[in-house]
Each structure stands twice: as structure tokens, then as C-alpha cells.
């Protein structure tokens, strides 16, 4: 995917958030010495190209009462994972769903889905629903609740 130096500067200037002012893109444009049109065009193009996934008011689940942040991990049949992954991802309580490599023998899991519950029972219900979706194609599984958030920032790229 193609990004130039200006795109990179634009990402660096906005990845931790736009300024909370009436004309935020204008403020970023002034900071970078660009026109607001160019800033908006570049953001729109990067969104089209899939570099920017979305422009969002990003909620802080934890502060909103979703204290039970569970990383659910599953050992899913490799032949089924590309079929089942999207079905898990589309569940309304799943915020992220990825395939990752197993590390045998320590780590047999290849599917990761993040769930968020206000109570542990909520989270457990969510795990049960994912389990149903995966059905016979899943072997062992685990849920890793976070006991402490040690650091959380937006994606940062270096400069």
C-alpha cells in the first residue's frame, strides 16, 4: 500500500486523536502546512485504500462499564478457520477477531476474539455463543481476562 511522507506525517499528527475544536481538520492542516482540502482528500484516500479503517470516536469500553475484557482463544480446524472467523467477528459483542499462529506445545490456539462484558456472567455467555458458532470445529479453548491494563494507546508509528 502506498503512502508518501505527507501521509505519514498526517497519520502521526492524528493517530492519537484530532484536536477537539470546531474545525479539527483545518487545525491539523495548519499544523502541517497543508490545505484543509488536501488533509481531507488524503484521509479519504487512505480510508479507501484500507490504511485507515475508519474515522471514529473511539469508546473506552472499560470506562463505560465493560470491565470484563476477555481474550478468548480457540484451537480451530485450519480448514474451517477462514469460514468461521468472519462468523465470530460479526457477533455484536466481539470487537476484534484474528487468526494467529499456534506455538506448540505451549499454545495450541489459532483464533483470537476479544469480548467485553459488564459482568463475568455476560462475558461467559458471550464465550458460550462463540463456542456454539465454532461447533465441532473447535478443540481446546481458553479465556484470558485482563487483570490489569498496564498501557493502552492508539497505534503509534515512529517518526
Amino acid at each position, binding site marked *: 500500500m502506498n503512502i508518501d511522507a505527507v501521509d505519514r506525517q498526517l497519520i502521526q499528527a492524528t493517530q492519537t486523536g484530532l484536536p477537539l475544536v470546531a474545525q479539527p481538520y483545518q487545525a491539523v492542516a495548519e499544523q502541517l502546512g497543508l490545505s484543509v482540502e488536501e488533509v481531507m482528500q488524503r484521509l479519504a484516500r487512505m480510508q479507501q485504500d484500507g490504511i485507515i479503517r475508519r474515522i471514529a470516536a473511539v469508546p473506552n469500553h472499560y470506562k463505560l462499564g465493560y470491565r470484563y475484557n476477555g481474550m478468548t482463544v480457540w484451537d480451530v480446524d485450519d480448514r474451517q478457520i477462514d469460514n468461521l472467523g468472519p462468523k465470530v467477528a*460479526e457477533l455484536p459483542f466481539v470487537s476484534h*477477531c*484474528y*487468526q*494467529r*499462529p499456534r506455538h506448540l506445545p505451549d*499454545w495450541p490456539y489459532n483464533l483470537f476474539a476479544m469480548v467485553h462484558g459488564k459482568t463475568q456472567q455476560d462475558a461467559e455467555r458471550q464465550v458460550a455463543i462463540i463456542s456454539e458458532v465454532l461447533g465441532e470445529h473447535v478443540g481446546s479453548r481458553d479465556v484470558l481476562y485482563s487483570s490489569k491494563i498496564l*498501557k493502552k494507546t*492508539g497505534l503509534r508509528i515512529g517518526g
Partner: protein
Amino acid sequence: MLAQLQPLHKHLLNDYQQDFPLSPTPYRDIAEQLGVSEDEVLHAFEELSAQRMISRIGPVIAPNSIGSSALVAMAVPEHDLARVAELVSAYPEVNHNYERENRFNLWFVAVADDEAQLGMVIAEIETRSGYPAMTLPMLADYFINLGFEMNLHD
């Protein structure tokens, strides 16, 4: 805390997880969509931001579209966890770091300009901490373009 959320705040939290307007005056656009004033929208976002109910407003970058990233797990003995957690969090390349209830009790996401640099950062963390790291890069992102649906009514 949730009890004080006004209907406007709930709309702002739930409705703009995908399409925050890309326009010269996004808050005015939102105000028009919701039938309130631009000042009310800005003020409500300021409150949500001050209470950290939103972590930021801005572009969300797709994983691995720029640079190289991986989820990394370490199994650290309880007595040494605080030291290693702090060591890991201090890296600017680390943007999430969670303690989790598992033998692998430290989980973090590291991002670098390319795979070689990412490998160097992880190797350095292994050396400085004294524990091996399990690197789990993303192989597929089963991404569905829907916001995380929040129940803000209780």
C-alpha cells in the same frame, strides 16, 4: 457514572464509532444529524473525553498497513511481573500492555517500521527481562465493518 449519561452522550458514543464526519465542520454535521447545536455536541464530546469514556476521536489505522506489528506473550513469575511490565510499557513501540490471568500473564502489542525492527525490539525485551517471548503476528483479520454495540442503558 453511566447514570449521568444524557441521551446526547449515548448517541455520540454509539453512533460515531464508524463514520465520524470527514468534513470541515464535523461537529456541526453531527449537530444537524441529531437536531442539537454545534456547541452542545462539542461540549458533550469534551465531557466524554475528560471522563475518558472516549479514548480519542480520529483515524483508526488498520493493523499492519503501516509498519509491522505483533501480539507478544510472556510467562513471567509473579514476583518479577511488576519489573517486566514496566520495562515493556516503557517502549514507545508497545501500544497495549495487559496483565492477564494465565501462565502467559503479560500480553502486549508491539509496532515497528518493519519486521526486522520489530524482531529487534522483541529480542531486546527478551534479553532485558530475562524471559522468552512468544510472538503471535496476525495472519488474518476477520474484520466486519460494524461498531462494537454498547448497551448504555444500565
